[in-house]
């Protein structure tokens, strides 16, 4: 636990979970997309849906999706800024079942047409959890450089990825494996102590059996 998630962050009010946490979910999603977002379908669940409006949750999510951080004084103006930039924003209700009370489901399209779906949960004190990417469970905080590899569920892919990280001197802080069914879609979520160099990610994208690589860099 980072103590500066307890004392901090410096943020625009009024709610650390519903404003700053929402902005962080948007910001991390923008980083995961890796390119400008031109269309965002924002589906809210639970308390985000019930009380989000008064907390500026919608403004904060959109601000984050445009790359603004939780202390950005432009958050109250984000919906207008998105309109000026020509970003299409649609709000709705999420049909998730039994999700965390503060959940946003984001269906995003990037400037090159890249698609990404993120389910983000705001845990309080602006800490967040990225619960799902493209429908498969993930669970990471966004506090570490994070590599998300979607692959076909077959032997050898984990060792390929970890061998690449070892070769680049990247230490693994936490690693999770999920799959939809045997031989189906699988995902590796690897939180790292160092940034993964771009050539490592490019190599992975071309590796056989790898469907998609999503990388969260903490560098600006």
């Amino acid at each position, binding site marked *: 636990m980072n103590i500066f998630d307890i004392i901090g962050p410096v943020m625009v009010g009024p709610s650390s979970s519903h404003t700053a946490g929402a902005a962080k979910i948007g910001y991390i999603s923008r980083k995961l997309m890796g390119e400008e977002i031109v269309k965002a379908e924002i589906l809210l669940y639970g308390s985000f849906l019930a009380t989000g409006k008064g907390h500026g949750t919608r403004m904060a999510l959109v601000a984050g999706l445009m790359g603004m951080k939780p202390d950005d004084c432009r958050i109250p103006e984000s919906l207008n800024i998105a309109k000026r930039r020509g970003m299409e924003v649609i709000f709705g209700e999420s049909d998730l079942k039994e999700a965390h009370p503060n959940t946003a489901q984001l269906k995003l399209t990037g400037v090159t047409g890249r698609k990404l779906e993120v389910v983000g949960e705001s845990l*309080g004190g602006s800490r967040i959890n990225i619960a799902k990417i493209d429908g498969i469970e993930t669970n990471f905080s966004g506090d570490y450089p994070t590599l998300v590899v979607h692959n076909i569920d077959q032997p050898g892919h984990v060792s390929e990825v970890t061998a690449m990280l070892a070769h680049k001197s990247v230490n693994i802080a936490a690693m999770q494996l999920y799959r939809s069914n045997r031989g189906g879609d699988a995902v590796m979520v690897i939180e790292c102590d160092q940034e993964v160099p771009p050539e490592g990610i490019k190599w992975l994208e071309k590796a056989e059996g790898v469907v998609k690589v999503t990388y969260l860099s903490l560098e600006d």
Partner: protein
Amino acid sequence: MIVYNTVEDIVRICRENNMLFWQVIMRADAQERMVSEDISFAAMREMYRAMKRADSEYDKNLKSPSGLSGGDGEKMRIFNSTGNNLCGAFMGLAMEKAIKMGESNACMKRIVAAPTAGACGVIPAVFLSYETCFNAPEDKMVEAMFITAGIGAVIAKNASIAGASGGCQAEIGSASSMAAAGLAYLQGGDAECIAHAMAFALKNMLGLTCDPVCGLVEVPCIKRNSAGAVNAISSAQMAMAGIRSAITPDEVIDSMRRIGNAMPSCLKETGEGGLAITPSAQRIKETLQ
């Protein structure tokens, strides 16, 4: 590597290594983030100064977007300056600063979440007032800030700091216990005294619900910051007097988690119970729509 999961862990590490409470928290942070202790200390000083800036940027003329909040901190300042203050200069100033910070937050100004935005007034109210009234050096204040952070981290780990999960006890209750712990240190309390100041403050806030009007971080949140600050001061004073909590500090935190889990969801930031469904709240809701 320093690792702590409970208040008892911190107290034990202090005893075994002859360290102060704040040093344990700072060293653990430096090790965890792989930075020097100087960098850790500078980062915490920056948080404290951000609190100071937010306090000094209070604008008495601002109103929140809902129109419900603004200007009450100025009323407290004026009243305190008349000499009719009921509870002494320090506590009076803490109440004033707590309300001001809560109002700044509601008006979408920049604040420091501590541990949350809804509770952002408690710690700066107690600390900035203490620095002013007791002429404390800034370094000492930053040391005490590490104590608040360590207590908050333990609460987040073993219970919750989110109103939606644990009710207001998790927000104002956590902030108040963090401030009480820091204040006990500022007054010269040892690790045990710090832990019991924390326990008193949290015990007094157990069961507090999160039922804000229209779901906004305004009513009753802003005034609860003042209550949290006052509770922190009285709790630190009890601990400094040598009074000890019959329930251990970690058991108080465990209780807070269990109470939060047992609390119905209508009282956990959903706007569906408590103060939020009173006739007054309904009238406010109608005028906002």
